[in-house]
């Protein structure tokens, strides 16, 4: 399932460094995502996974290196314009709008890109087909949803901008295993049916690597390992660090 190396990747991160004040969170990161792939980014707390995702979105800005999307350099493009290039992200902790209704939350996703009424309808149908629960609760306030439903809403909201690249930050955070599996299934469906390219940042390495075509392991702001999902799952150091980590204390 490894994509051909000759084609240009949809997203190419090359030697990117980023910092919060004096603390360097990314120390020269190289990541490539090909169109139609699911790529998982795994690593411990504070490894810089979320920072990488946010740096791709222009906040914090990369201090060195380049980020190329679809052949264009987007390293210096303002955050709100990056969203118009049809890159969508579902931020860590879901961050839905609690006092706004489910319908309004979804509409907020569509507002970012100028879309026609028909496209909006098609987007809604797609989200409701993927997460029927949201359709039942469309008039409810976002804050009244359960955690899993809120995660569905966050992904649905990101999908409303009709992205080519969807970036998900810890979609299984704080969810019951069954609900987490539903979310992962939905991501797989999106990838298989629509060919959506997905970058998924996860702590749940087992799930994420089984889902992903390829994976990257991040430690202290650097990519230490890369390979297909199945390969990474077999690596003893991965098993020790992320899959059986709890047992070693």
């Amino acid at each position, binding site marked *: 399932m490894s994509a051909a190396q000759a084609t240009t990747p949809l997203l190419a991160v090359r030697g990117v460094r980023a910092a919060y004040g004096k603390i360097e969170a990314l120390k020269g990161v190289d990541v490539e995502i090909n169109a139609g792939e699911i790529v998982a980014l795994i690593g411990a707390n504070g490894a810089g996974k979320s920072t990488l995702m946010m740096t791709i*979105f222009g*906040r914090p800005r990369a201090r060195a290196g380049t980020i190329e999307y679809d052949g264009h350099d987007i390293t210096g493009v*303002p*955050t*709100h*314009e*990056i*969203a*118009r290039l049809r890159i*969508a*992200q*579902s*931020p860590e902790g879901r*961050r*839905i*709008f*609690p*006092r*706004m*209704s489910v*319908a*309004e939350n*979804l*509409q*907020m*996703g569509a*507002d*970012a*890109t100028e879309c026609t009424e028909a496209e909006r309808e098609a987007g*809604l149908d797609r989200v409701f087909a993927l997460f029927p629960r949201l*359709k*039942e*609760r*469309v*008039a*409810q*306030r976002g*804050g*009244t*949803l*359960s*955690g*899993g439903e809120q995660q569905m809403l966050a992904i649905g*909201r*990101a999908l409303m*901008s009709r992205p080519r690249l969807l970036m998900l930050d810890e979609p299984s955070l704080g969810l019951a295993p069954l609900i987490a599996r539903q979310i992962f299934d939905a991501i797989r469906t999106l990838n298989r049916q629509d060919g959506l390219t997905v970058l998924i940042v996860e702590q749940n390495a087992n799930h994420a690597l089984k889902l992903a075509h390829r994976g990257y392991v991040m430690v202290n702001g650097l990519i230490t390992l890369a390979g297909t999902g199945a390969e990474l799952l077999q690596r003893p150091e991965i098993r020790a660090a992320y899959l059986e980590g709890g047992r070693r204390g």
Partner: protein
Amino acid sequence: MSATSARPSHAAQPSGGAFILKKALISALVALVLFSLMIGVRTEAGPQGGLIYWTRFGDLAALVATVFGGSIIVELLRQWWGPIDKDSLVPKPVQSAMSFAGRWLAPALLVFAFLVPVIFYDQRYILDLSILVLTYVMLGWGLNVVVGLAGLLDLGYVAFYAVGAYSYALLATNFGLSFWVCLPLAGILAAFWGVLLGFPVLRLRGDYLAIVTLAFGEIIRLVIINWQSLTGGPNGVSGIPRPTMFGIPLDNSDSGLAARLGIEFSPTHRLVFLFYLILAMALLTNWVTIRLRRLPIGRAWEALREDEVACRALGINTTTTKLTAFATGAMFGGFAGAFFATRQGFISPESFTFQESALVLAIVVLGGMGSQLGVALAALTMIGGFELFRGLDQYRMLVFGIAMVLLMIWRPRGLIGHRAPTVFLERNQAISSDLVKEGHG
């Protein structure tokens, strides 16, 4: 409001006489400890400079008894109203009555507002008061854009009111421009100052933003006081021209409206005109706000209030979103200021103190942040209530303080805390959001 009284009492809440007595006793004990030094012992510097003191145990006992009794009453009231922190289900008949009232309250108020000059034509006092109330309704609706929708706490809103008032006053007295020319200019100038305030505070939120806006309000006032050559300093600007009805003055001259219509002149004509003018301006504010809420920019304001990080993730330009909120709110403040100047005929920095900002903010918060009807009701209650209790004189503030505390206990989201959604899908309405509690699973 009446819906809460019909709630079924909650079984989980501890009730019973012993519980109430215990709670009241604890409150009384706390009061005794607190007041024993504050009230029980009175100290003063004696004639020789030494400290003399005497005890006031009678007052102390009375206060503690009041606290004891008050605690029992509050507890009984609380059990009668039902638990306040839970959204319990409202019975069907009450619910339909509420929705009926909710649907007809706003139109009824609007019709009444149009009829006020007809009903109270002879009562100058009531007309004056209605104009004042409507001015605050407009200010409340203007600030509602910034505070209620965009969630940017602005403690210096009076600055834009002042900018609008001085814009009209100075343009009219120095250049002889008419009210109708100055009105948009006042709005534009206020919006300009709104953007100017917006830039430095873009990164701030919450408390920090409040402090900077508070300072901004004071800066504008101090500039007005000290820039004597332009603004007349503390003496203010007088002789501000009255508004004309599209060029026709409302006075007893030969070219005045009364003479042209061939009716007898009465000063009430101008009052009625001013009333309809501010009513039209307030309704314009309301209409623009309602329209904006349904556009992407209005939704972006509300989303910004909810979660700024999520807004950025969705590609919303938070800079322009905040600046447009500041500019829009400020513009309406500027309009209201120009109206204030033309109504008074005289303005001075004393009219633009922090107290005004606080009053308008209180109207917005009491009304229910973001609710247009709530803000109008709150302005009516606050300004009208101030006048009603004028007889109580020095107790007026006390009464209002208590009323506000009670309101915030029973309706923490303001008079109308319900937020009407702006996006509807035709194929829905499974469960109303009012009937569901917030979850954090």
